[in-house]
C-alpha cells in the first residue's frame, strides 16, 4: 500500500519522532511512501542550522538519514518555509541575499500542490502534528 505522510510540527515536537517511527514501520511492513510533506513548523526539519544537545535524541538528523537511506521524496512547503526563515540558496538569493539554511539536497522546497498530488497517489494520507 502507498502512504503519503505529512508533518506539521517541528523536530522538537513528540509528533516528529512519532511520524518518523511510523514512516519506518511503513517501509519495514513492505509498503511504500509516495512522499513526505513538511508543512507549518515542520519546515524546520530542513534547516541545517539546527543544533541538537549532545544528550538529546537528534530526530532531525534521524529524519535526514531515513530520507537518504530510502531515497524518499521529501518536500518542504516553500511558503511556510519562507515565512519561518528556512531558505535554500536559490530562495536566499532571490530574497535579497538572506542566509540560506537548507543545504542537504534531499529537501525540495515546493508548493502545496505536491501535498495534494501525494494524497491523490496514495492509499492513505496520514498527518502528524501537535504533541
Amino acid at each position, binding site marked *: 500500500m502507498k502512504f503519503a505522510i505529512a508533518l*506539521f510540527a517541528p523536530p522538537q515536537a513528540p509528533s516528529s519522532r*512519532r511520524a518518523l517511527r*511510523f514512516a519506518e*514501520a511503513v517501509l519495514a*511492513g513492505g*509498503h511504500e511512501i509516495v512522499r513526505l510533506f513538511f508543512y507549518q513548523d515542520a519546515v524546520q526539519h530542513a534547516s541545517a542550522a539546527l543544533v541538537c544537545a549532545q544528550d538529546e535524541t537528534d530526530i532531525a538528523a534521524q529524519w535526514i538519514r531515513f530520507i537518504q537511506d530510502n531515497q524518499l521524496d521529501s518536500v518542504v512547503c516553500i511558503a511556510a518555509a519562507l515565512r519561518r526563515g528556512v531558505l535554500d540558496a536559490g530562495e536566499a538569493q532571490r530574497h535579497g541575499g538572506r542566509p540560506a539554511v537548507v543545504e542537504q539536497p534531499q529537501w525540495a522546497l515546493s508548493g502545496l500542490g505536491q501535498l495534494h498530488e501525494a494524497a491523490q497517489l496514495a492509499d492513505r494520507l*496520514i498527518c*502528524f502534528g*501537535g*504533541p
Partner: protein
Amino acid sequence: MSTLHLLSHSPFGDDRLNSCLRLLSPGDGLLLCGEAVQALRPGSQPRRQLDALPDDIALHALDEDLLARGLTEQLPARLQRLDYPAFVACSLAFDKVNSWL
C-alpha cells in the same frame, strides 16, 4: 467509509476529544497517542466518556505513550495497545485516517 481518528492532544483544557467524540460514526476508530492517552486516566471525565463509547467504536492507544506516562493499570479491556507495526496496520484497517492536529 470508516474513519480512524488520530488524537495527540491532552483532553484536559482542550476540546479536540469532545468534538471528536461527537463526530464518530459506527465502525470508526479512535487512536490515542501523545498526550491524548491522558484521556485514559481512571477516574477522569475523559475516561468516563471513553468507557461510554459504543462497542462499534474501536479504541486504540500507542503503547509507548502509555508506558512513558505510567498508564499501564486499569486500562479499558477493549483497548488495543499498538506498537508501530500495529499502528500501520490499524491505519489500513479503516478507510481513512483523520488526524486532529
